[in-house]
């Protein structure tokens, strides 16, 4: 059963009186534990599509189911609860909370979003800190670590709630080439370890090659899909 099913998704933004289409009837399915990339030039609709899958926005038309939930019909609070339980986010600018340490940033979703016991929190955060290689930096604040380290912390934060899906919008855009590969490999490794579906967007052709399933977007349309093997499966419909 597909983790994500999108049918005829359309998204329009209004600029004054004019409706500007961002997505034009996009349909696809993504299976669990996939490592997926949405590729396309700037303005092709990658971020819009990730925002819809991540329940941060709603489509103008079409059906979208994530983890067997009709996310289009979710109200504001239900949507937040769904995101907290099901989806992890990795942002282009890392978006770590500057007042929290590395450890606390990873712990944040368990404290504020899910009510997890202290022992379990400690176990999960420590395990992820070790997994992303940041155990030695647990007490540092975000301004005391490098960009690559920040993104590793962001990966750990996204995974700490054991989500079914992690969305990463241009996760390597602010990283140098080596660090970008390292972060992608880390994400893949996490996918293998936790069976989490990773979807990331990028316009960098070198990074795209790391994805196992590639959806290409152009002018709001999903043009083609490439399956390059791996654990998951995805197809445009």
């Amino acid at each position, binding site marked *: 059963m597909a983790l994500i099913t999108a049918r005829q998704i359309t998204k329009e933004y209004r600029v004054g009186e004019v409706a500007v289409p961002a997505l034009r009837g996009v349909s696809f399915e993504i299976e669990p534990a996939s490592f997926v990339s949405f590729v396309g030039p700037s303005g092709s609709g990658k971020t819009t599509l990730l925002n819809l899958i991540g329940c941060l926005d709603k489509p103008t038309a079409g059906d979208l189911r994530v983890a067997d939930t009709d996310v289009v019909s979710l109200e504001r609070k239900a949507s*937040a609860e769904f995101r907290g339980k099901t989806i992890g986010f990795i942002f282009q600018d890392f978006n770590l*909370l500057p007042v929290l340490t590395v450890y606390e940033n990873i712990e944040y979703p368990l404290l504020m979003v899910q009510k997890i016991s202290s022992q379990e929190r400690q176990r999960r955060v420590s395990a992820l800190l070790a997994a992303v290689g940041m155990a030695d930096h647990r007490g540092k604040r975000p301004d005391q670590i490098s960009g690559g380290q920040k993104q590793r912390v962001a990966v750990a*934060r996204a995974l700490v709630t054991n989500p079914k899906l992690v969305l990463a919008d241009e996760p390597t855009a602010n990283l140098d080439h080596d660090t970008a590969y390292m972060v992608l490999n880390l994400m893949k490794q996490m996918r293998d370890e936790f069976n989490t579906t990773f979807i990331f967007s990028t316009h960098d052709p070198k990074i795209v090659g790391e994805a196992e399933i590639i959806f290409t977007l152009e002018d709001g349309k999903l043009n083609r899909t490439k399956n390059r093997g791996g654990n998951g499966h995805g197809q445009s419909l």
Partner: protein
Amino acid sequence: MGNLFKIAIRNLLRYKRRTLLTASLITVGVVFVLAFVSVAGTFKNMMIGQITDSMIGHLQVHRKGFVASLETLPLNMNLKGGAIGKLEKILAAQPEVEAYSPRIKFGGMFSNFTETSSIRITAIDPAREFKTAPFLPERVKNGSRELKSGGILVPELLAQGMKVKPGDTVVVVATNADGSVNGKQFVVTGVMESATGPGGRDGYIHMDDARELLRMEDKQVSEYAIRLRDFGKLDAFGKKLAGLLSQELNPLGKPIFEVHTWEKLSPFFNIARMIDLMTFFIKIMLIAIVLISIMNVMIMAVYERIREIGTIAAIGTLPGKILSMFVIEGLCMGVVGALIGDLVGIGLVWILNLSQISYDFGMQKGLVLQASVSPADILMISVTVIIVSVIASLQPAFKASRMEPIQALRHI
């Protein structure tokens, strides 16, 4: 909840200078309000104390209608035998009453045998009067504080104008209830200053002398002054006594007595009210300072952290929790400002008292300011500041909690 406080405090410390400035503003506001409340309150209490303890008493009972015609001090409005007995019986049974004192008040002429002037006489039973108005003896500047039969305490300005001094013989002439005029010689026992300032023409004689001068064959009293054990219970006791006395009716079925607190009998009550009004407006200013400064800081905080709000909202933080996060920041700032303000304010009041600041009230010179601030005032001001801080944070916090994560994340 502890984690929300931790994050709030760290966010406040993130902008140390701004937080310090805002907390300082609140602190200064609290300090000034505490200082004003303590000084103004002390002055007000001293003023009320002087008026009630040296002249009026806490409250008074008269025959119904007496106060309306107080200017003429009518002798035909005096309380008489049966009414006096009933009143004394009721007053003696009240545990709130510390002391009460009968008085006869009348107008007359004061003569030193060469000049004559008008005078208002209050005839008292000294032993009972000094318990009811304990500051009264302290107003005697020259001569003896004891008032015996045949003696008169002369007001200071009248004594100066008529050139009389303790030991001199004077005559008081008065019209009694049936219209005949009588006179009686008195020896000036002492010269007393006015409680309320220049112009006082109130002299004191013994109750027995007044009865002789006014040819009163039966016991008569113009008013009863009452002193309570606890001044704070004045209003409650005033109502209680009025209720008790309202049951005492004359043969026509009309009430015999009327009860007035000092507030109804002294123009200084308006000054006390003005002090209360000024205190109220000072508190309003404090509320405005707290409201504007906290709201300003919180609006800035929300604006500067839009992307952070977007991040925490995106990862599933519920709107209520985001609202709490910002409200707690305002709350913390209010608590810190109030606490520091309380400490500095108490310190300032202590320094004021150490400085031995003196002032004049009426004819009394060199009264030393003994400012005090009550725990109730500190609590009330602190709680007000904290509540206003929370209210001021609500609008920015609500705005933060209602932000769409997608728009917040796009914010640059």
